[in-house]
């Protein structure tokens, strides 16, 4: 069988799991300020893990695509350390703060330039704006069969088989490749990467290709910014917490049981 080619779209974002105290809102500039390191959006790590599992004993090539005004290759090199074969950065001033549709159209153009592929994987939703659209938009733009919320992906005779989450459980679906699949966390966490491997990839001389819009995108005037009209902090969720003290767990448990009794 010929080499299986998978494209994984991965977005770099400020750590979405940063403690609340490190996040603030600049209403004036309409920006969310996160005082935390950049990471790969969690569901995109799941997508990469799915790709690595699918290709475990197969002749394959996994390409990771990441797009932004500026993408940090130190953050994205993690994908190579985990086992991806190629990383391509799509960087341009014009790619700043785009809306989901425009992000998808940039990714679609890059994928067309790459040309040959069997599967495109995205996360179900990026952890910065929680939009949850780019995957399916991309699938439509590339006119691919689209499958969302994958918990398990396998390949069989040129078809992709997916266990897709549905309200009642899951549905096993099948589509002819090339196809697009959005990945959910049930596929499993990105595999462990040893420190040595990580360091080697960081220090390595390997150069990471970066394409700017002239390289592949012909219609930048079609790119729209996210239409943010207003940005504010959420209402305060804090409550006055009464800590149930006690010299022993037994004593604490007694107080807690009394709380339950009062709530009955």
């Amino acid at each position, binding site marked *: 069988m010929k080499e299986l080619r998978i494209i994984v779209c991965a977005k770099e974002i400020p750590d979405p799991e940063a403690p609340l105290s490190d996040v603030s809102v600049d209403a004036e500039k309409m920006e969310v300020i996160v005082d935390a390191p950049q990471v790969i959006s969690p569901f995109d790590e799941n997508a990469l893990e799915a790709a690595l599992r699918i290709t475990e004993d197969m002749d394959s090539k996994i390409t990771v695509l990441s797009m932004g005004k500026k993408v940090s290759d130190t953050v994205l090199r993690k994908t190579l350390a985990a086992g991806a074969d190629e990383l391509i950065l799509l960087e341009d001033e014009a790619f700043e703060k785009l809306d989901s549709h425009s992000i998808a159209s940039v990714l679609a153009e890059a994928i067309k330039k790459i040309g040959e592929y069997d599967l495109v994987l995205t996360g179900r939703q990026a952890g910065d704006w929680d939009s949850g659209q780019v995957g399916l938009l991309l699938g439509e733009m590339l006119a691919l069969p689209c499958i969302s*919320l994958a918990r398990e992906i396998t390949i069989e005779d040129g078809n992709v088989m997916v266990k897709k989450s549905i309200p009642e459980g899951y549905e096993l679906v099948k589509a002819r490749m090339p196809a697009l699949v959005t990945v959910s966390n049930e596929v499993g966490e990105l595999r462990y990467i040893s420190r040595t491997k990580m360091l080697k990839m960081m220090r390595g001389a390997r150069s990471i290709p970066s394409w700017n819009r002239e390289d592949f995108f012909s219609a930048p005037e079609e790119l729209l910014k996210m*239409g943010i009209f207003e940005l504010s*902090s959420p209402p305060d969720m804090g409550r006055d*917490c009464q*800590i149930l003290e006690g010299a022993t767990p037994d004593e604490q448990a*007694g107080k807690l049981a009394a709380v339950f009794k009062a709530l009955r």
Partner: protein
Amino acid sequence: MNDVLILGEVKEGSLDMKTLELLGAGRKLCGDLGSGLSVVLMGDELSKAVDQVISYGPDKVYKLEHPLLRGFKTDLWVESLEQLCRQINPKVFLMGHSFIGMELGPRLACRLNTRLTTDCIDISIDPEDGVLLRTKPVSGGNAISVFKCPGEPQLATMRGKVFKPAEPAEGNGEIVDMVPEIDESMIRVESMEVVKEEIVALDKADVVVSGGAGLGEEDGFEMLDGLAKALSKSFGNVMIGCSRVAVDKGWISSDHQVGLTGTIISPDIYVAVGISGAIQHLVGMVNSKKIIAINNDPGCNMFKVADYGVVEDFEEIIPALIKKLEELS
């Protein structure tokens, strides 16, 4: 005039009550726009659901009935909705942020060359230009953003349990039968098998006992089961919830997950055991009537949103608590 369209959902032949929230949201917009409200229902057998929805007083119900619309085959549903929208040109189109809406929304937006905002908690009309203002939590819930986008229909999916369900209303709504032009050849994703799992209906629980990474291993949930059992003697429906990490670790299935990408709930009592209180988890439970946190880290965020807290290793507290509850009952 039928400027505002909503997608009704049908469950086993009956109207899904979530649709009433959309009807409520749609009504509000119609007030702002001075327009009519229409509902589209899709499926293979809709008479009952149509009768039900009519009793809430929409101006029009588009009935898209077709044998191939049995079950949710996304390809055919997107195609049918695209045809409908091209025919009736709604100004605003709202769907639930449900499994169905999450999948149809982006694909329909692409085909109609319009912009979608997902998981909205409020919508209104800008009086200046009549454009839809879409309010959506972003960054997990760390900020609330209002978006304004070009294109028609103005398209949004709405978060559940935010809008007040519509009340029954008088009206002589018109039923419009439409047969979408679809056939088998349009199905690109084939359904091989639907596997029904035992799914917890977390939104129906009176009390949710939830476990996170702090449980350390799968066995921790057995302890929580014990607590749930003890509580169920005094409280109605007690169910087990969890954080995403517990799902990631494979300790429990994802239907138990509470939060942004799980279920959003507001039970009478929420007990968070070994859950740190990340924003994506909080948005799923912060409206619970009472929140109790058990965590060995006094600085953890869950204590900030809780009413009662116990700072201790759960392995010490839970067995002791079960015993005390039994003594008290």
